[in-house]
């Protein structure tokens, strides 16, 4: 992968390991299936929990009769909200002036407000018995009017989910800069579009799972959980069950993906530990795939009204946005935060003098939305990149050149955006240029023109994105945005790295080892990275928001610097040299300019532990911790281009070429960065093409299994042509920005832009996601009915299409 970007920040680290395509240290145990996920945890006397869930989207609970279930052989407990004495509410971490926060009990109390809401929990000797007994719990419901459509939910005569709130509005949030009314008035053209960003299910390969064990003698509650945030979960569970935080230990064993869905505290996270404490025996709950689709948070689900004010020459004058964001029935940990990120990133990578954004959070009878890969930024990128394409078309400008015209120049960084963020560093022009080259953009455009004459619908999609990563400065986050890192060099010279981040597929056992190896001049094989055990690792925030390396890695970097100072002091003492002259490299600690004076790495480290000869005031041992507080977010960026052909007769889309040029600053391991980009594109492309969480008019989930909910398979994903530019960030000393979400953010608008571009001759400006063939076919048929096609594909098909319109 060529990295031909010009560096405009700090020099790239060109160590022996950093920058290498080093294979993941995690993989041998994972691919052989010999490691342990939460469901693999087996404890003596383990009991199993199954939840009784609401079959209604909105109903009053009239009665619950659990007698039959309780007396079923093998059942140890059946609990409802009435039994959950002392268990606190499910937390929401967001605070906003007018935010409505409904009470969120772990088991439904009086009402149920979405299908799948837990109503009772059954504990039995095995999961089969628990499941059998769950079916014996008789719940009498009185169905209530269901609120599903956000626009209707805000109408005056809508049914209410919470009578006390007086409306279904959860909050209103606005953000303004410049004079939007003047911009709209002055504009030669105002381009408008209404975009739907559909609800999707994160669908981690490993569903959620939790095992809890309480030892009353030691007063210790141990929780194994598939989570991205072991420390925050520890704090929140302690609060919910009423134990001192010191009595709770959370272990995240192998975690099979999260994508934001495990950056949360769920009902089950409270109920299962509570049951373990009450019953005096360990309890396990593992989510089924159906539960995963229904009651793990969903992502996106916004309705976006956008207006872009422009001069004839393509200069942007202003952007106005009104966004409705579906909260679902309750707030999970960060539910109301996600659309705020959309507002912050709506200006994208463009100079926008006037900006006005209003976001309204809306309650509906569905599962909560919350962070899903990209969390608010894919929505923003979709909005701005789609309207940029609509605008280019209306002004008859080339989509790439129009974007470039509105980019800030590299010398303008740090660049303050219309939403008030300060972008750290970028060279958008260079990324666009490289992507156009790799895609063969001019040829694609030429083929498109020729194709239209033959009734072939080729399209080219461009998406120049910027995202907000390395979350983040603590002032801008609900629960602290720093990260901890501890580096311990053991007496044998082997190194243990403890990170407060909680990697679950990102590969930081590998990248952190690479970074430390270079600093110490040792091999990554001699370094073990430990994470996800709150008793072993100092308090940390976790892995989300593409922060693991940029924030967590930086904490480790600084801890390493502390140890290098300490090693230099000790070696100077032992070798009779000045600390400033000590060089640590290639497994040795020596003196600059004097090759005879040196010791092996192991000798120096052992000397720190035997402590027989140490300088005055030297602290024995070799361990350092650093808590890194970033001064800003980082803002990775890039350009994605894809070429599609749409079969106008059936509405099927074929992605023929996909080019991604991403810039995440300096790269520690290109192999892992490629993997993140590929996986990210697959997920974003899949939202554009396939995925959609559908509820019917009664609020029943229609796509409740993987037979209906379309997670992409290998055959659905085209080959990707990947490249990078490298613009390091000044925000951290390694110049790394983060890359976990870039692909998801860039690819969704890229694909939709390409399809709409292909259908431009028919006058089609927008088709809502997912671009299901039938939806595309209907749009084409409607357009063909309005305007005759440039050249019909076949007579019969054109007739069929018109007839169906």
């Amino acid at each position, binding site marked *: 992968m060529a990295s031909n970007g010009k560096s405009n920040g700090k020099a790239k680290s060109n160590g022996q390991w950093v920058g290498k395509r080093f294979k993941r240290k995690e993989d041998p145990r994972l691919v052989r299936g010999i490691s342990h996920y939460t469901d693999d945890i087996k404890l003596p006397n383990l009991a199993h929990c*199954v939840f009784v869930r609401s079959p209604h989207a909105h109903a009053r609970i009239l009665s619950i009769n659990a007698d039959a279930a309780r007396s079923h052989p093998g059942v140890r407990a059946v609990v409802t909200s009435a039994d959950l004495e002392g268990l606190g509410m499910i937390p929401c971490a967001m605070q906003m002036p007018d935010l409505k926060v409904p009470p969120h009990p772990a088991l439904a109390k009086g009402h149920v407000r979405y299908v799948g809401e837990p109503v009772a929990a059954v504990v039995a000797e095995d*999961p*089969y018995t*628990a*499941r*059998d007994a769950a079916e014996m719990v008789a719940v009498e419901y009185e169905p209530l009017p269901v609120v599903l459509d956000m626009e209707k939910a805000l109408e005056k005569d809508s049914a209410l989910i919470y009578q006390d709130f007086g409306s279904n509005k959860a909050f209103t949030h606005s953000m303004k800069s410049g004079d939007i009314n003047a911009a709209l008035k002055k504009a030669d053209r105002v381009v408008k579009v209404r975009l739907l960003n559909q609800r999707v299910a994160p669908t981690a390969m490993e569903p959620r799972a939790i095992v809890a064990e309480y030892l009353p003698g030691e007063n210790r509650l141990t929780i194994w959980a598939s989570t991205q945030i072991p420390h925050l979960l520890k704090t929140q569970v302690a609060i919910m069950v009423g134990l001192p935080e010191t009595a709770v230990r959370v272990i995240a064993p192998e975690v099979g993906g999260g994508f934001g869905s495990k950056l949360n505290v769920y009902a089950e996270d409270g109920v299962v530990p509570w049951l373990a404490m009450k019953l005096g025996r360990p309890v396990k709950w593992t989510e*089924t*795939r*159906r539960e995963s689709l229904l009651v793990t948070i969903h992502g996106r689900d916004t309705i976006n009204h956008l207006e872009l004010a422009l001069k004839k020459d393509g200069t942007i004058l202003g952007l106005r946005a009104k966004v409705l964001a579906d909260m679902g029935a309750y707030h999970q940990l960060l539910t109301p935060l996600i659309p705020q990120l959309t507002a912050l990133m709506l200006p994208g990578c463009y100079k926008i003098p006037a900006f006005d954004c209003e976001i309204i959070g809306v309650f509906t009878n569905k599962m909560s939305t919350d962070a899903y890969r990209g969390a608010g930024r894919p929505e923003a990128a979709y909005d701005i990149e789609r309207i940029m394409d609509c605008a280019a078309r209306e002004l008859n400008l080339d989509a790439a050149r129009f974007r470039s015209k509105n980019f800030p120049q590299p010398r303008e960084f740090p660049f303050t955006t219309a939403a008030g963020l300060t972008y750290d560093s970028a060279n958008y022009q260079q990324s666009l240029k490289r992507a156009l080259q790799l895609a063969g953009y001019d040829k694609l455009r030429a083929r498109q023109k020729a194709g239209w004459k033959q009734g072939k619908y080729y399209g080219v999609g461009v998406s120049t994105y910027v995202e907000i990563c390395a979350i983040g400065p603590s002032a801008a986050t609900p629960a602290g945005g720093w990260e901890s890192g501890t580096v311990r060099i053991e007496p044998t010279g082997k190194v243990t790295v403890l990170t407060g981040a909680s990697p679950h597929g990102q590969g930081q056992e590998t990248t952190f080892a690479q970074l430390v190896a270079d600093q110490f001049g040792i091999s990554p094989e001699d370094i073990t990275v430990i994470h996800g055990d709150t008793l072993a690792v100092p308090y940390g925030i976790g892995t989300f928001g593409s922060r693991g390396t940029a924030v967590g890695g930086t904490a480790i970097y600084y801890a390493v610097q502390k140890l290098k100072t300490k090693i230099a002091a000790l070696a100077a003492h032992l070798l009779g040299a000045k600390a400033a002259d000590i060089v640590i490299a290639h497994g040795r600690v020596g003196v600059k300019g004097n090759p005879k004076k040196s010791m092996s790495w192991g000798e120096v480290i052992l000397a720190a532990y035997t402590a027989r000869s140490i300088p005055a005031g030297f602290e024995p041992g070799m361990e350092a911790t650093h808590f890194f507080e970033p001064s800003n977010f980082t803002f990775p960026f890039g350009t994605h281009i894809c070429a599609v052909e749409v079969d106008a*007769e*059936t509405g*099927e889309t074929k992605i023929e070429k996909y080019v991604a040029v991403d810039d995440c600053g300096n790269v520690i391991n290109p192999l892992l960065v490629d993997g993140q980009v590929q996986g990210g594109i697959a997920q974003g492309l899949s939202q554009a*093409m*396939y995925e959609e969480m*559908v509820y019917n008019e009664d609020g029943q989930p*229609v*796509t409740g*299994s*993987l*037979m*209906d*909910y*379309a*997670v*992409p*398979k290998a055959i*659905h994903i085209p080959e990707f042509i990947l490249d990078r530019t490298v613009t390091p960030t000044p925000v951290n000393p390694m110049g790394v920005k983060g890359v976990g979400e870039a692909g998801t953010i860039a690819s969704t608008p890229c694909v939709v832009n390409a399809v709409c571009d292909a259908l431009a001759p028919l006058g089609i400006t927008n088709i809502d996601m997912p671009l*299901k*063939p*039938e939806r595309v*076919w209907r749009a084409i048929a409607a357009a063909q009915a309005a305007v005759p096609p440039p050249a019909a594909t*076949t*007579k*019969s*098909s054109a007739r*069929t299409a018109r007839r*169906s319109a």
Partner: protein
Amino acid sequence: MIPASFDYESPKTLNEALSLLAAHDDAKLLAGGHSLLPAMKLRLANPPLLIDLGRIGGLDYIRDAGDTISIGALTTHGTVASSRLLLASSPLLAQAAGNIGDIQVRNRGTIGGSLAQAHPSADYPAAVLALDARIVTASQSGERVIPAREFFTGMFTSALRPDEIITEIRVPKTTGAGTVYKKFAHPASGYAVVGVAVVVRGSNAKIDEVAVGITGVGEIAYRATAVEAALRGKPASAIAEAARHAADKVEALGDNYASAEYRRHLAQVYTRRALQEALAAKRK
């Protein structure tokens, strides 16, 4: 994904299996399990007894039987898809098998299991209909040979009696014919939204014989007899018009992914394309 309790038997011989089946009305046969087990995990199916046919020897084969090829009921889709004998002498069945589900499904699922399930969107039904295959069954009262056209009777129902087990599928050799299986797959399930299986004999100037089997559109797979009638003895130029009858008199299914109207439309387009490709393939 936690099934209700059930008993399990794994007979070693067909006779043992038949007597178990005769003794237990509501038993279900396990022959791959890719439809049955998910249904059981969701408790949509709760059979008290599972009779696993996987340990029965001698039902996994593909044999040349003169004018026909015989396929044992426990032959996996993967084996059918890659059979040299089928690919050389009767490729349509292999083409359909190669389109089923994904690699994992093809390595477990069996042709007998799939046909017995009679899923309205399965791939095999279109192919066995177009081939006029015969389905051989066994029961304690003896063997039956059921023509494919009489086999599928409704959604998830077939001419198979409760005491019968499918033992063999016989397909004619299609030497000299062009065959194509063309499928629009559901992106989640992999089932056919529309699947069209075509056997064509003749030339561009005159189509001598044509058979079109269609799955996914209606409650059961069917032969598109109106298309066939409109093409027999006609030149290739008649295909476009003939294909418009692909879903005549069919009550099409509709769901969240594809409406009835769209399925009918796809049936027409895919039929036309399949016929054109089959004729082109034949010329090679």
